[in-house]
């Protein structure tokens, strides 16, 4: 199987990235390769969606839809772009749709409870004091609200740039816009965030 994949169209995929090669194996009926892809990208997709919609349950539901779409598209998959570009394009598309449909609004009342599930960063070797925890919660809440005020595309661009460490060209491919448009989106987004969060320095 592996040898065959490396011939023909597989060569183009392998030149692109290993994920695309795995996806071509999924196309050939190799379910284990889908498992590898899932293992590799599960967390980043869920985390990206969580930061987009700011609700853990909705984020997981959307992430399931993302991987389901990947699986459904296996027979028509062609490695024309980097696998993660394709993956995050699906994720972004679903997140933007969910935000426009107000899908997470019905679970909005759990937003505050949701933040309590977040891991509290240890500031020292000891457990954080109640005061430290409260300060951290307040900071976190402010960060989340600042991100939430960003227009959807700016939000997606910032999250991919900051947390997924994507390059401008890849963000541009995900958002289907030019590289200069991405720079502009990021510049404006960080300008808004600086106005809201710079006092934390």
């Amino acid at each position, binding site marked *: 199987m592996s040898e065959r994949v490396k011939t023909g169209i597989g060569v183009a995929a392998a030149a692109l990235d290993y994920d695309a090669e795995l996806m071509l194996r999924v196309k050939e009926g190799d379910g284990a390769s889908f498992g590898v892809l899932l293992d590799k990208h599960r967390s980043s997709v869920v985390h990206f969606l969580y930061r987009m919609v700011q609700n853990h349950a909705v984020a997981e539901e959307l992430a399931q839809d993302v991987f*389901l779409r990947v699986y459904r598209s296996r027979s028509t998959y062609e490695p024309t772009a980097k696998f993660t570009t394709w993956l995050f394009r699906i994720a972004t598309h679903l997140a933007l749709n969910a935000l426009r449909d107000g899908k997470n609004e019905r679970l909005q009342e759990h937003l505050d409870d949701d933040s309590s599930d977040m891991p509290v960063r240890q500031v020292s070797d000891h457990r954080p004091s109640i005061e430290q925890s409260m300060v951290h919660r307040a900071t976190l809440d402010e960060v989340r609200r600042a991100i939430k005020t960003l227009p959807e595309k700016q939000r997606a661009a910032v999250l991919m740039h900051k947390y997924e460490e994507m390059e401008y060209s890849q963000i541009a491919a995900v958002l289907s816009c030019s590289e200069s448009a991405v*720079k502009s989106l990021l510049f404006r987004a960080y300008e808004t965030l600086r106005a809201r969060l710079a006092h*934390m320095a």
Partner: protein
Amino acid sequence: MRCPIETQENAELLLAYCSRSLDAERTAMLEEHMRDCQSCREFAGGQKAVWEALDTWEAAPVSPDFDRRLYRRIEQEVSWWDLLMRPFRPLVFRQGLPIAATAAVVLMAGLLFQHPANIQRSAAPESAQVEAMPPDQVEHALDEMETMREFNRLVRPDTAEPKM
């Protein structure tokens, strides 16, 4: 060095610097510039604060049953047709389609060459068909013929009966 903050294109240098993704040479150049440029210092300070604030936002771990739920949904997607066709799919996609298409063309051509008359013959009926008449209609027609005959006899008595 031209002040990066003056143009949006160059401001990406400052963004890269604050995200620690700028190469050593340009980092040194930018730091030297920032010693004399207060605007850039303020920009970098604010951007660093944003970067650190964003670092505090850690996402919760993925639910342990995420994969199980996903695979259950995938299994539900697999229809009975997929289950039936799965063993034949590689054959159908790789060799089956061209073979089946060729076989269909050959079969059609063979049928056309072997029985060309059948197609024309089927257009014409095999034999003439006599329409059946209901008995009461026949009886009515005979009565009418008898009436006509009576009428003829009254009007022209010499021609009423045919001569044998």
